């Protein structure tokens, strides 16, 4: 447990490195992954297979939006633009978003959501564990906090994948199909781009490729427990999200997510 006597720690205490473009681009990628997946998960409200699952997915969505808010607030304070969290969430266009394609894909069936969550949470867990040693004090604080949350996300997805995989003939077949559905989007999580290379060089970020072994091993263990086969390597792989090149569902997602603040700027309730 960390010392509970050190209560005077304020954001960026310990000296955040000067914020270069690569640094903020890297942070935006982390924030955008969390925000966009949070939005997709929020779509499950009232559609989950049972009430408890409505609550679980909403809670996970809430954790992710909390992480995104912390990251956006921080980015806005160091990139010289003085943008707030709402500016970054609602007033950037598709090409400015740096999230991976995995999180923007349309909601499929519940098995597909658990396959996506399993991979994303496995990635997130390895990511935040590594960022707990970041040279950027505020990012480190966000990561230490978020790590506790994403462990629960991984556990939740793992339990469902096991239950469905090692379940009935029907649930097993659909869970197996879900793994094949998610497979083409996995590689992008672990692909190094210019911003992450620069952030890793500066000790601020981590190379996504360095997280793959941990995350893949965690997923493989769940699949074994679930008596599921790892899907064959996909013939195509999603790419381009970190450069703002997105897939077709992204524009629709943003249209819905950004509609209210753009139609009624400054609206509060």
């Amino acid at each position, binding site marked *: 447990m960390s010392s509970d006597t050190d209560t005077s720690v304020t954001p960026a205490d310990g000296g955040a490195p000067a914020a270069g473009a690569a640094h903020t681009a890297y942070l935006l990628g982390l924030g955008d992954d969390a925000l966009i997946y949070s939005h997709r998960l929020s779509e499950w409200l009232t559609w989950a297979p049972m009430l408890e699952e409505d609550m679980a997915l909403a809670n996970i969505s809430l*954790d992710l939006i909390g992480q995104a808010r912390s990251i956006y607030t921080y980015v806005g304070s160091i990139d010289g633009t003085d943008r707030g969290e709402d500016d970054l969430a609602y007033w950037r266009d598709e090409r400015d978003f740096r999230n991976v394609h995995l999180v923007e894909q349309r909601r499929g069936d519940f098995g597909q959501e658990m396959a996506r969550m399993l991979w994303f949470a496995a990635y997130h867990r390895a990511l935040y564990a590594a960022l707990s040693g970041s040279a950027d004090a505020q990012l480190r604080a966000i990561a230490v906090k978020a790590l506790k949350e994403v462990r*629960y996300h*991984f556990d*939740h997805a793992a339990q469902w994948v096991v239950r469905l995989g090692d379940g009935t003939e029907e649930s097993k077949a659909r869970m197996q199909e879900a793994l094949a559905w998610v497979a083409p989007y996995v590689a992008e999580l672990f692909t190094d781009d210019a911003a992450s290379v620069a952030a890793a060089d500066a000790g601020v970020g981590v190379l996504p490729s360095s997280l793959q072994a941990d995350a893949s091993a965690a997923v493989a263990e769940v699949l074994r427990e679930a008596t599921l086969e790892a899907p064959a390597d996909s013939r195509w792989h999603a790419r381009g999200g970190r450069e703002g090149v997105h897939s077709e569902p992204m524009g629709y997602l943003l249209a819905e997510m950004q509609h209210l603040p753009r139609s009624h700027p400054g609206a509060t309730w």
Partner: protein
Amino acid sequence: MVTATIVSVDVLSAVRAIPDPEIPVVTIQSLGILRSLSLDSDAGEVHAVITPTYSGCPAMQAIEDAIARVCRAHGLRAVVTTSLSPAWTTDWIDDDAREALRRFGIAPPGRSGSGPVPVTLMARGGGDDARHTVACPRCGSERTSVLSHFGSTACKALRRCDDCGDPFDEFKALS
């Protein structure tokens, strides 16, 4: 002769006594959300540092507003800072609050838990959660099981007592 007595309430005590907006039987101090508090009489300001239980906890704004309200009532201005580090842990919940939670029907968090059950511990076909014992806050039975790791708020899980049959909230251990 009985007259109205102006009780000089210590503003700092009043801030410490602010109830949690979701679980009003415990205070922000006893939950460990209030990390530091000081009074700057010259500037007429109260400085408070708060930390969220979970990143997305929607109660943070309400807590900030409550602190401002209490300070205003004392003619002071509140300067509230949100700090993420060190990260909040359920180990900061004090004993009084644990007892208050239990009486309120919420099982207090275990002290040694460290997140969710690893999947390898999960016995297939029920009998889940070999992690720790959580006693039913109503009947005291230790035979309880997890219904969902995610309950009515971000910080709670949903459980059921295998003896009295009642469902109940558990404050999730986070260390």
